[in-house]
């Protein structure tokens, strides 16, 4: 089908306004990413003999990676972390808040402002605050709360490290889920609820039969965005546990950091990053297939 002259001109104009973004992304994200792929085939390091004369090592980094129990551990930890914090924690609490906030409550603005607060805290600051909450046995704020209720205390980051970072990341992300899901809820026409109520549907039935199905596109979009950004979470968890104890919270992002900046093995770190990218690429495609989101 031949395009009209005007259409073609319009397309060209659209390209021009997109161009600056494209150039920046190419220069500062795509190029370094491609360079990382190249690095993953070398033994490039930040220090030591390999830094002076890096060599091409073929697939060695990748074969090493598949035999590396710590890499698989990192992949598993990341999976549990994403599932626990983004897909369950943030989603459930965000949805509950979004639904509750649709009511005409007296402190509505206050509630929603407080829920937005954790999202405003920079990672480093959030890290400090949670160290004070969790670390140090009986001194920790959480221990004091728990012992106030007569329950046993623990050294939280030592005993339940993975659960704790899931709680912390949930805390940080409720707001994003709430915003997106509120937006999704607001697109459901009131008339459908009215009609269902006339038919004598209970709130639970209405939620299951109306809210959930109509929200599905929003939910899947949220899942896609939150999964991708949760895989990339680094600073918050690094500030809290540095991946420890004993690798229990070593997310893939922390594993990459430790390889690149603790062990200074840039080549190997890049190989891990490439695999992480591939895995999330597959995840992303799966989501898109499942969602059939029209974008």
């Amino acid at each position, binding site marked *: 089908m031949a395009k009209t002259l005007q259409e073609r001109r319009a397309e060209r104009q659209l390209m021009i306004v997109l161009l600056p973004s494209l150039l920046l992304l190419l220069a500062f994200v795509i190029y370094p990413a491609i360079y990382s792929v190249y690095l993953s085939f070398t033994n490039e390091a930040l220090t030591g003999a390999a*830094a002076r004369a890096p060599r091409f090592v073929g697939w060695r980094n990748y074969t090493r990676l598949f035999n590396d129990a710590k890499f698989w551990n990192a992949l598993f930890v990341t999976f549990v972390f994403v599932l626990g914090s983004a897909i369950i924690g943030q989603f459930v609490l965000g949805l509950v808040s979004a639904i509750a906030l649709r009511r005409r409550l007296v402190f509505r603005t206050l509630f929603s402002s407080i829920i937005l607060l954790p999202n405003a805290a920079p990672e480093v600051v959030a890290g400090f605050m949670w160290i004070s909450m969790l670390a140090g046995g009986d001194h920790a704020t959480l221990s004091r709360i728990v012992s106030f209720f007569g329950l046993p205390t623990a050294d939280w980051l030592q005993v339940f490290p993975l659960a704790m970072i899931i709680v912390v990341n949930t805390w940080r992300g409720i707001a994003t889920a709430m915003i997106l899901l509120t937006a999704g809820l607001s697109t459901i026409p009131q008339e459908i609820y009215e009609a269902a109520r006339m038919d004598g549907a209970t709130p639970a039935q209405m939620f299951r039969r109306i809210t959930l199905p109509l929200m599905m596109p929003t939910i899947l979009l949220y899942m896609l965005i939150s999964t991708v950004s949760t895989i990339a979470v680094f600073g918050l968890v690094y500030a809290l546990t540095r991946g420890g104890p004993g690798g229990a919270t070593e997310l893939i992002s922390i594993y990459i950091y430790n390889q690149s900046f603790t*062990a200074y*093995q840039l080549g190997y770190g890049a190989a891990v990053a490439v695999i992480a990218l591939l895995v999330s690429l597959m995840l992303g495609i799966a989501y898109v297939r499942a969602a059939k989101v029209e974008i």
Partner: protein
Amino acid sequence: MKKTVFGGLCAILLGCTSTFVQAETLRLANHGQAGIDAMKSTVERIEKKLGVKVEVVEYPAPDKDYLSKLLTELGAGNGPDLFSMPSTAAVADMVDAGYLAPITTEINAWDGYKNFYDVAKKLAVSPDGETYVMPYMLGIQEIYYRKDVLEKAGISTGQPKTWDDLIARAEEIKTKTGAYGLLFPAGVSWGSGAFDEGFQHLIVGSKTPQIVTDDGKLDLNGEGVKDVFNVYKTLIDKDLMPVQPLLGPEPWVIPKYELFPAGKLVATTCGSWCYIFDWGRESKNPIPDVTKVVGTWTVPGQTGGQFVLANLAAPWAVNAKSANVELAKKALLEIGSVETQVSYAARIGNIPASKDAASDPEFQKLTELVPIHAAAEKGTFLKQAAGFGTVAEGVARATDALLRKEVDAAGAQKILVDYVKETLGDDAVK
């Protein structure tokens, strides 16, 4: 047409840069406010003597991130002209990477170097026989103990002769006073301290006192390594050293600043700075009469011998790719002066590497440090090699697992060996 003109212009401009003479500037990267304060007078002296402008850049981050930044810059060929390094363990690797300019000729021709302690000079020599760092300050470490607590409880304050002797003493402290008997830094959150302030003390007195073979490989499968981890294991299992605080952030705060001053921890490894910062006049929680109340033991060897650990403290080096290597080397010699050493000693609590410091009136005021300085020559040390940074991280991980009671000594050794092999490749380890 336009393009050609522009291209030509560019070419001319680029051509000019090579002939353009710039005012000479030296960039110094330093770490931590105390270090910057200590360098202030030195910087002025360098500017005056060499007729250059000195720009001091503070890299604001914890040791590890400081090193990451420095290495990123050096790797890209854009590092500062002179820099201090937070850990000596990184030096050999940086030499291998070609980041450091050799200063062997300059430093040996320099008058001031003649009066440096031999131990400092030896520590500064890299495996290839060249010197790359200015070894101007020494960290002298041994065991510090609460004389008053021991005397009150009727426990001997005599020098322990062997490891068993040392552990028996710790047990006696535990049973007689209820306090923790002995601390060796351990665990990941203590960073390089687990290696620098803990492991090294013991390994130098073990059956395999060096962990580098003659051909530069790391020898970590030795019996000594396992025995050292066994000492940790014993201290942890018998509850002789505080474990919980070491697993949290800032692991040194509770044992060193709270338990030790309160007499609830009776002995710990520490360095000369402890008399000033940890428990002395600069401390938040000082021990009154600290030099009388707190005594020192050397670290005994496994079956005898006495060891005082000597380290280079935050040595300075010259960037091999500096635009002004020769000028930077001259500035480095200034940093080696007694005046700078004393200035650092006053602010950081480390020991000047030059014997001449003893006659410096400013140094004589630091009465806590004078006797340690006088005995510095006796220091022992580990022969350095490439990969020491990795070994330090491996030791931190191994002792962390010990703290969490997940492994025995052999298991800890396996963690160390595996980590080093994974990181540096199988052929780096003997």
